Every structure is written in C-alpha cells, then in structure tokens.
C-alpha cells in the first residue's frame, strides 16, 4: 500500500511538471499550427538560465523564475518574428524542418557555452514531508503548485483578457481574425513568447529534479507531442489530465514491472498514444482546432 501511495504521489508530482512543460507546446501548435520540435531544447535553455542564476548570482532556483520568464518570453517573441513568421503559411513540413534545425542549433550552442558536463542546481528547500510512510518532497510540491498556478493564469489570460480573445480568435479562424482588426503577426509573436516563457519556467522546475545537459531536450519534446496529441490542441485542462495520465503510466509501469526502470514506462506511454490516435484522433478532450489557411 505504501508503494502504491508513493507511486501515486510521484505520478502527481511528475504530472504537474509535464503539464507545465507541455502547455506552451500545445498553445503554439493550437494557435499557429506549428509543431515546435525545438520545444525540449527551450526547456533546457530555461534550465540552464536557472542554473546560471543559481550558480553565479546565488539565487534560489524558484526565484530565478523572475528572470527566466521574461527572458524566455523575449526569446520566443524574437524567434517567432525572425524565423517562424517567415514560414507560418508554408506547408507543415517546412516548420517541422525549421524547428528541428533550431533544436540542433540550440543544443549544440548550449554544449559550446556550458560543455557537456551535467549541471545541477542547489536549493535550501531539499527536505521532505512524510505522511503515512509516503515521502513528499518539498521541492516537487512547490513545482506542482507553481505549475498549477501558471496554468490557471494562462487559462484566465485566454478567457478573460482582450489579448486572450485575440489569441483564441486567431486560432479558430485566422482570416476572420484579420477581418475584425487583429494584427495576426503580433498575436502570433506574443503567443510564441508566452508559450516559450511557460516552457522556460518548466525548465526551472526541471533543473530542480534532474541534471541539466545540452542534449536532454528530445525526450521532453516526444512527451510534449504525446500529451498534446492525447489532450487536444490548446486545451489546458485536457493537458493537465493527459500529463497526469502519462506520468501515471510511466511511474506505475516503472514501479510495478521489475527491472525495467522508467524506459518501459515511456514505451508504455507511446503504446497508449497509438491506441488513442487510432480510436480518437481528435484527442481525448477536443480543444482548439488546428490553425486554418
């Protein structure tokens, strides 16, 4: 029973991280129709930024979010304006190739800048609580709370603000959005900025639980793709549920199938993904349709 309880807690904690990690990917895909294959690398950039602030400025990793979020927003805005905006109306293969190239560029630039040596952050919040023989790490609990708070903030932005309505309008009907006076280029750049800012924030959470290295981004992109496909594009509550489900599959398979570690958990995740794609191609929860035109 303790083992089950521990696995459940671990799954919830991991699911919270996945949810924040995936939502930027889902938002960009849902609004702009761009599958960002450099997504995992942006998580890693956020993690390195956190490490830098932690190692060289002495900040707690969570405090580094005040730098990571605006810097990553600016980076995302710039990448959209300079690169993505030029290919937005081209066939999907073009954006796949361009973002794949961007992933290689980022990973190798990180290796040049920080070498391949894994880096770790230090935190004063490394303790844990014990509840009925189940260990609850403080850091992962804060991770979960921050992830939920940022998703709630995004949800409010999309449903309550003028900018959020413009983003939703651009996602649902790009031509009609132009007709009502929305500057599509600006909305897309801000959307990309928000998506990358959230992704960078996920990098901060990542840095607290795993070693940071230049080439750890790809598995994160794969998970983001799997969760988004399961959840539906741009669907925040769906992304949260899909993340929890994927984390549960990974953790429970890793816990109860002896001798396989987490790798089989990842394999099991993709088996679930394939089954969902065959039986319900629109995802489990619908969500925004792909961008038109």
């Amino acid at each position, binding site marked *: 029973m303790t083992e089950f309880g521990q696995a459940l807690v671990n799954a919830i904690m991991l699911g919270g991280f996945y949810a924040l990690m995936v939502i930027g990917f889902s938002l960009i895909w849902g609004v702009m129709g761009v599958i960002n294959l450099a997504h995992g690398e942006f998580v890693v950039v956020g993690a390195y930024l956190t490490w830098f602030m932690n190692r060289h400025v002495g900040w707690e990793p969570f405090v580094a979010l005040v730098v990571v979020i605006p810097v990553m927003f600016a980076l995302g805005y710039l990448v959209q304006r300079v690169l993505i905006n030029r290919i937005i109306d081209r066939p999907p293969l073009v954006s796949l190739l361009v973002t794949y190239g961007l992933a290689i560029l980022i990973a190798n630039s990180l290796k040049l800048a920080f070498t391949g040596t894994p880096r770790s952050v230090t935190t004063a919040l490394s303790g844990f609580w014990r509840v009925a023989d189940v260990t609850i790490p403080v850091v992962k609990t804060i991770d979960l709370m921050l992830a939920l708070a940022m998703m709630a903030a995004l949800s409010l932005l999309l449903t309550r603000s003028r900018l959020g309505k413009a983003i939703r309008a651009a996602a649902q009907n790009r031509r009609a959005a132009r007709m009502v*006076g929305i500057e599509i280029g600006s909305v897309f750049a801000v959307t990309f900025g928000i998506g990358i800012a959230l992704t960078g924030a996920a990098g901060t959470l990542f840095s607290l639980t795993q070693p940071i290295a230049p080439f750890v981004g790809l598995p994160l992109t794969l998970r983001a793709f799997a969760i988004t496909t399961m959840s539906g594009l741009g669907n925040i509550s769906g992304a949260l549920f899909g993340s929890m489900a994927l984390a549960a599959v990974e953790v429970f398979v890793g816990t109860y199938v002896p001798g396989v570690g987490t790798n089989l958990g990842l394999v099991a995740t993709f088996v679930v993904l394939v089954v969902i794609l065959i039986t319900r191609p629109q995802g489990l929860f619908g969500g925004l349709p792909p961008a038109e035109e």
Partner: protein
Amino acid sequence: MGDNAGGTPVLELEGLYAGYDDADVVKGLDLRVDEHEVACVIGPNGAGKSTVFNVIYGFIPVRAGRIRFRGEDITASSPREMLNRGITIVPQQRSLFPQMTVVENLEMGMYLERDRQLVRQRIDYVLELFPDLAGRVKQEVGTMSGGEQRMIEIGRALMWAPRLLLMDEPSAGLAPKISATVLDTVQRLNKQLGLAVLLIEQNARQGLRISHRGFVMELGTVSHTGTGAELLADPEIRLAFLGGSRLRS
C-alpha cells in the same frame, strides 16, 4: 429600398487590376456605390467577383487602378485600416469563431474598440435588429445552423456601425427560404439604417430585386450596368443569368 439612395459616391473602383500568380482575374474594373444604396454584382463563376472583395479589403494586392472611399484614396489599405474607415465585410466562407459564443463573436466585431460600455450598447442594438439571437447569446456559434450563423456574421459586421457593408454571396449554401430572409434583412438594414451595401450574389434574381444598382461582371470586368430593375428586365441578362424566365419586378 432606401428613399434617399444615390448622389454622393461612397465607394469608387477605377481601372482596377488584381489576380493570383501570373494571371489577372480582375481586369480594368470600374464600379461605383453611392451613399445609402444597395449595389449588387452578379456574374458567372470565375468572373472575379470574390476577388474584387478580396482586393477592396486588402487580402490581395492591387496591381493597377484606384479604390476610393468617400473621395479618399484607400488603395492597398489593410483590413484594420478598412475597419477604421467604417467598412466591414461579410465574406462568402464562414467567418465566425466557432468555439466562441454568440455574444463573444459580436464583441469581436468591435475588437478595436476599448470602450466596454459602447460595445455593450452595440450588442444590445444588434440583438434588437436580430431578436432571434437574443435568447441564445451564450450558445457556441459552431452549434448553430447556417442561416443563424449568417445572421451573426451580419450582426458582427454591424457592430462597428459601418458606413459601407461588403457582402459576398450572403445567401450561399442556405435553403431558399433562409436565403430570401437573409436578403430581406439586407434590404431592411438599408432602409432602417441608410447603410450602403455592396453585394455579390449568385442568386441574381434575388440580389437585383433588393438593389438600387446592379453590375454584371464577366471575365474580370463590368459588362453591363443599370438599376436593379433595369437589369432584371434586360432580355440579354435574363437569358444569361436569370434562366430566361418571366420575371417579377
């Protein structure tokens, strides 16, 4: 039809050329719409009717010629600039945001307006014009019928209190009865509000019936022009576009 139609031009197209890739689709088009009047463009498929709207609204570039709105040169204006001048459009293809509610779609018609009170007043005004929508403001428009969606599109275009409304085949894809209702609504708005309307209509008989002025477009240019009644009575037009049948005026 509005009694005070005619006189001052609200929209003038002069020698307009536009197209796609290497081909000109619109070739030296001249067209004029006066204040408070409904003008209708009819013509066969491929004549370039919809391209004219795409050019006017800045979706595709003008290759040659001029577009004037109330005497001001607006050639190559963006959709946002058109909106700011008081020109709105109801395009042929569905232009709503399907996962937003009726009221959210109407609000989007005044996206550029920051005065929330004015937006609310305009919503009330549009709901008065379309009372059938009033009880369904919270419904997602993607779940509504084609005719209802067309009414919302027209309502959204009216939110901005336009001086000129461009409508590209508003009755396309609708059942005949609904189609007639939509065109009657256009006529009612023209009478009630004095709104100038440039209409493209595949259903030539219905379109000309409600129009002060008509244009027949063939091969990218205007081949015939006259009042709606004159074109309805023209034997050549009747044969080519109205099935050669006896007409009601």
